[in-house]
């Protein structure tokens, strides 16, 4: 047996969520006294591949087939399942990213494996009992899932496991698979990826604003605050419903669930649906002029005040802090 980690890249570069997943998979391999093999698909530089060793991968399988340069869900799932079979991997780990959510269920079926998606902690193993804690009810709770199958697929929630460094460079091998034509029915026409902005699910800091901002023209200070902190911007449901901000920024039960180190909520009252999406944030800061806003009940830090006065002062204070640091 062994553990296989799918090391996802975005435009040829590995992301922090990939390093988290490799570190997590290494800890699972250690629990089972076995080795960790990584698989990378696409065009990633040789030194980047070898650097996965730093996070615990002993061997990296590199699939650089031209047809697989960009993500094709069916084909990628076939390649990863093949790598698991060839290497006798009974546990496959990946990040619960947008692509990971496409791959994990297909891998589950291919490998006849139980799938724990949205895992937030290392598995607990007790004899043959293998359980994983995952998010449920859109962040309002966690479920402990037992994977009763021999093979297992685990998709790790970004920002829920710390990157662990320390290993040596990994050995990189080419892995060639004959790709089935029927796996390539979909055709990518265009990829739009903003490289200058932090993506919301991966962000360590999120600056989020709600109806208290009064209109889309007032988001300049939110973006400035986010830029200063290296944060992603987000919003509440009424804001995206009104078209002030794109749906991809909507955080909450029917939008995106996030688990950053710091979530700053500005002018958001804190409806239960919104709170569900942010409950696994490590630190929550709330700025709201209504002292009775429900968001203060789940906040770690708060300022009762008008966003239009507090945020500019906060921006100035952070600039000051940065010049001192």
């Amino acid at each position, binding site marked *: 047996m062994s553990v296989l980690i799918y090391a996802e890249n975005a435009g040829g570069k590995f992301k922090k969520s990939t390093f988290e997943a490799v570190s997590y998979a290494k800890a699972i391999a250690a629990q089972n006294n076995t080795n960790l093999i990584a698989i990378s698909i696409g065009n990633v530089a040789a030194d980047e591949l070898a650097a996965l060793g730093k996070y615990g991968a002993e061997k990296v399988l590199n699939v650089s087939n031209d047809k697989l340069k960009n993500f094709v*869900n069916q084909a990628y799932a076939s390649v990863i399942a093949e790598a698991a079979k060839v290497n006798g991997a009974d546990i496959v780990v990946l990040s619960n990213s947008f692509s990971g959510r496409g791959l994990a269920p297909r891998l589950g079926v291919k490998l006849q494996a*139980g799938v724990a998606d949205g895992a937030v902690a290392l598995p607990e193993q007790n004899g043959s009992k293998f359980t994983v804690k995952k998010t449920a009810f859109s962040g309002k709770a*966690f479920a402990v899932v037992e*994977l009763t199958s021999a093979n297992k697929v685990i998709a790790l929630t970004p920002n829920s496991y710390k990157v662990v460094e320390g290993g040596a460079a990994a050995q990189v091998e080419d892995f060639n698979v004959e790709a089935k034509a029927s796996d390539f029915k979909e055709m990518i026409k265009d*990829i739009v990826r903003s490289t200058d902005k932090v993506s919301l699910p991966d962000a360590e800091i999120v600056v989020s604003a709600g109806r208290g901002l009064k209109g889309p023209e007032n988001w300049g200070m939110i973006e400035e605050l986010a830029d200063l902190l290296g944060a992603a911007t987000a919003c509440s449901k009424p804001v995206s419903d009104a078209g002030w901000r794109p749906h*991809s920024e909507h955080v909450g039960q029917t939008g995106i669930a996030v688990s950053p180190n*710091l979530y700053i909520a500005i002018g958001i009252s804190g409806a239960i649906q919104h709170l569900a999406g942010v409950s696994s944030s490590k630190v929550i800061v709330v700025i709201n002029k209504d002292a009775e806003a429900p968001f203060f009940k789940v906040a770690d830090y708060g300022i009762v005040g008008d966003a239009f006065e507090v945020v500019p*002062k906060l921006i100035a204070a*952070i600039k000051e802090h940065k010049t001192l640091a």
Partner: protein
Amino acid sequence: MMKILVCISNVPDTTTKITFTDNNTQFNTNGVQFILNPYDEIALARAIELTDGGKGSVTVINVGEVNTEATIRKALAIGATDAVRINAKPHDAWHVAYQVAEYVKANPFDLILTGRESIDYNGSKVAGMLGELLDIPSVSIIKKLDAADTEATVEREIEGGKEVITIPFPFVAGCAEGVAEPKIPNMRGIMSARTKPLAVVEPVEVQTLSEIISYETPAPRGQVNLVSADDPAKLVELLHTQARVI
């Protein structure tokens, strides 16, 4: 004539406070209002738009016991043509996907839509599992869906952007916000929903691969530390030295 299947799920209302019973092993459904999963409403709305004006039909399918029929009727009231209920308590995504795949093998569709995830177990797995079981493409989270004669163009969500993909029918897609605006049933829809066909199909045996053994609720947070509105610098200092997040 385009035949679309929309997989629907019966979930706790978004305002539900989630609690558990039996030593945290069972979800407490006492007093909980169940609704059509909000993402499935988006999928259903788009399916109705795509088949509007006699261009096709929309079947909704649910794996559930008889108590889910109110939710199924809601989908019919919104505008689905007919409905199928597979008479089983859903065990997990694999169990649900397997049941639906068996039905689709005997009753083919051009397009299968699901919500991006259900708001109870948040798996976003049914679309991918169905795709694999039927050996057709699947896209887990789409933000836009346009259909032509033999293929569709979808926008797939990726971190910090999107991919535009064309896919030939049949395929499976999980719909998110942006695909369509949910539709509110009108009186005529509500009246006609009562008489639209709702077929009940018995389930097939499925091997169990996973089991939920217990639940936990997030640890409560301590008292909020309030900082004066005149002194945001104090907040910056606390975030730096105490919380250590900036």
